[in-house]
């Protein structure tokens, strides 16, 4: 096979870290190539350089035998390189076709474009209606918009940075069928994911990065997921273990919680009831967009609800805002880390102040104790192995997974009585995900009532004591997680979502 893209000696340094250190690898035509590595290993940095978003400090790239020096993403697109980002850049209030037109250099007339979109979406089995508003689409459908936007440019190389972290298993199946078909037609695919089983089913080759360097290259089908994880980390992995203590009395009780959604594309919560005991982990599963964000807002205090709808040891706390809830040790870690859980342009020290001022005594009579905040940030960084040069760095300079570790660690270390987390291991590598799950288990073992909202059913089955499903703003009655079969879970999830079978034109 001839190489489509060859990368040699690519180097990029940021203050305090070398994100890529003489990285070299190549991708053949029609190959599905995985890029593996821990959080902060430099995967995103590498593909951003290939896509012209970041300029390398040194190194060389060759595309189809010619030197390739993309000065910008539009130059990369002209050369036939397309990229789907983990964070979608779509406008809710515009239609699918309008969103796609916005990303094109010279969009054709709307009618022609809509016809092209239909054509491509049929060829690749990506069901999508051009005139629907993006605001009403699920995460998987949004991603299809991004993919189709790429496919319309007829790329030779398609880069996908963690594309499946927000998809349901059905959506993942559809995506994989599409990618296989693309590869069969000769398009090379560079695929980043922390989900090792997916990599094993999809990819032909894997390049493994550790701390900015290529450490190994292998055929992922010949390795087990555990082996791959160990190659990434360089040490053996330990699966989370739980102590299996007996839960105590009910700590948090939610009854008849209803909340109209604040945003027109959100989901309203309808009559949600459940309770969590001390030392127990309640797992809440379901496809994103079924009220997860709203439920977190209601529990964190960002959205005020009727006082009696949320009770802490019998005391109504529904009307309390986020500050007073922290004071009574009800803590939360939202899903969106940049801009919600953390302020992107502020340092980690300032972000520690953001939620820990009350419980860690970082403020006295309104005056802030910055040295104490810095010490607390350092404590989180050390305890959760956050890879960063120091607490003075801005949140947005951390890699996705490392910021996630910081955000979770910041709440766990504040001795919560109730902790609510939404997608705790979103974009986190296997070993760090195991560490985060372990910390949640340990927290429960020490008597905290933990609520884990997640799309990852394996994760929920691994750590929850009881399981409930959130579907269109309603919560199923929680059931003991042990012994729950896949069919039972499917039934609890309501099964209404995206069960359409992928139909790929062969």
């Amino acid at each position, binding site marked *: 096979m001839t190489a489509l893209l060859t990368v040699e000696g690519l180097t990029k340094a*940021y*203050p305090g870290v070398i994100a890529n250190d003489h990285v070299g690898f190549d991708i053949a035509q029609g190959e599905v190539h995985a890029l593996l590595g821990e959080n902060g290993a430099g995967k995103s940095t590498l593909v951003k350089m290939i896509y012209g978003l*970041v*300029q*390398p*400090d*040194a*190194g*060389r790239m060759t595309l189809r035998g010619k030197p390739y*020096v993309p*000065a*910008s993403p539009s130059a990369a697109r002209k050369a036939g390189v397309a990229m789907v980002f983990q964070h979608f850049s779509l406008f809710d209030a515009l239609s699918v076709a309008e969103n796609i037109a916005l990303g094109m250099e010279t969009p054709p007339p709307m009618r022609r474009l809509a016809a092209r979109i239909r054509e491509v979406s049929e060829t690749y089995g990506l069901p999508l209606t051009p005139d629907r508003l993006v605001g009403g689409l699920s995460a998987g459908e949004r991603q299809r918009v991004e993919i189709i936007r790429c496919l319309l440019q007829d790329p030779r190389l398609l880069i996908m940075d963690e594309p499946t972290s927000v998809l349901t298993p059905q959506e993942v199946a559809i995506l994989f069928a599409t990618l296989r078909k693309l590869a069969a037609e000769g398009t090379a695919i560079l695929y980043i994911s922390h989900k090792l089983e997916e990599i094993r089913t999809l990819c032909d080759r894997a390049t493994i990065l550790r701390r900015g360097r290529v450490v190994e290259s292998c055929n992922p089908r010949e390795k087990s997921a555990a082996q791959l994880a160990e190659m990434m980390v360089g040490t053996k992995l330990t699966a989370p273990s739980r102590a299996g203590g007996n839960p105590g009395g009910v700590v948090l009780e939610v009854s008849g919680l209803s909340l109209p959604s604040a945003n027109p594309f959100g989901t309203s919560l309808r009559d949600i009831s459940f309770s969590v005991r001390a030392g127990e982990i309640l797992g809440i599963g379901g496809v994103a967009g079924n009220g997860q964000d709203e439920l977190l807002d209601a529990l*964190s*205090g*960002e959205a005020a609800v009727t006082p009696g709808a949320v009770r802490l040891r019998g005391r109504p706390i529904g009307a309390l*805002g*986020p*500050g007073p809830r*922290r004071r009574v040790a009800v803590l*939360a870690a*939202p899903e*969106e880390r940049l*801009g*919600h*859980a*953390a*302020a*992107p*342009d*502020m340092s980690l020290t*300032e972000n520690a*102040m*953001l*939620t820990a*001022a009350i419980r860690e005594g970082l*403020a006295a009579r*309104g*005056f*802030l104790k*910055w040295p104490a905040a810095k010490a607390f940030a350092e404590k989180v960084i050390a305890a959760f192995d956050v890879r960063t040069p120091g607490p003075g*760095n*801005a949140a*947005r*300079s951390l890699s996705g997974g490392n910021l996630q570790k910081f955000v979770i660690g910041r709440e766990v270390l504040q001795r919560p009585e109730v902790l609510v987390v939404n997608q705790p291991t979103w974009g986190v590598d296997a070993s760090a995900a195991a560490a985060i799950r372990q910390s949640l288990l340990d927290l429960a073992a020490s008597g905290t009532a933990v609520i884990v909202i997640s799309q990852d059913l394996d994760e929920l089955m691994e750590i929850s004591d009881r399981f409930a499903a959130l579907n269109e703003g309603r919560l199923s009655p929680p059931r003991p997680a042990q012994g729950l079969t896949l069919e039972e879970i499917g039934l609890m999830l309501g099964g209404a979502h995206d069960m359409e079978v992928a139909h790929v034109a062969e």
Partner: protein
Amino acid sequence: MIRLEKRPQPSRAWTVATPLLAVALTMVAGGLMFALLGKDPVVAIRTIFWDPLFHEQFASYSRPQLLVKAGPLILIAIGLSLGFRAGIWNIGAEGQYIMGALAGAGVALALYPLDAWFLFPLMVVAGALGGWAWAMIPAILKTRFRTNEILVSLLLVYVAEQVLASMALGLMKNPEGGGFPGSRNLQHYPAAANTELIAGTGMHWGVAAAFIAVIAVYVLLTRHILGFQIRLAGQSPRAARFAGVNPNALVVICLGLSGALAGLAGLFEVAGPGGRINIGFNQGYGFTAIIVAFLGRLHPVGILLAGLLMALTYIGGELAQFMLGIPSAAIQAFQGMLLFFLLGVDVLSNYHIRLGRRRAA
């Protein structure tokens, strides 16, 4: 080819250097403009920036003017900067300045000729309250009805100007003024006058208040939870709500504080250098302070320096009009350039500039 690459964090060095660069660019472009107007650019620039402080003949008059003009600019800009940092846009400081002056002067004129120690402090309180109350109108409309505070605060400037005119012609008119519009001169009313604290420096209570405000806001922003919340709300509104910041409370606090400080500036002006309530008493300090706030990068120390610089261009501009016959419109254009270049070079602190198509090989 020139390309911009976003920096992971804003550059410290450029944050400090860009205002200086902007001043330099303004001198060049302004010099060009003066040359086109047929004036010697070097002389014009020297008249604006140098002569007010060091000219042997005029400096003794114009040097104290520096603090007199800078005082209100700094006081108002410091207040505005709090809101601007939080994304709350009070554009109507000019109106709050007028209302503060009216409230403060109103107290003095109502109690005339009372000679008591507490009169001046009472006026100060009234001035702050006047500005605060005027700013509460956009604040309450925003929090209750989600109106745009930019529009409301701006339009209230014109209302305030009408109130000022009617006061100058009616209620507050000097009964011994021979029918001319305008109030009594508070400078001639010792218990109410805001006198120079150190003779020959221009230092009056308003300037002192401006310095105190600079220090207080510096401490607020770096050490106090309210300052932290203000910065957080401006940078990341959703994270601010997660942190427990109440956006409505922030609107009331920021508009209230900036209104009160603008009102104070108005009071110190009417009781001091201005002397009397009259039509046209406001000289655009409230609007210029917006420029000062941005020129100082919304940083208290920056605002202090920017206020002094802006005052210098005012005094120097007047001097240039008087000595060289440069039209006042050209002086205003010159001041506008300063803001334009500042915002223009601002890019440097957030982006790398990459020259050429290719650097790395």
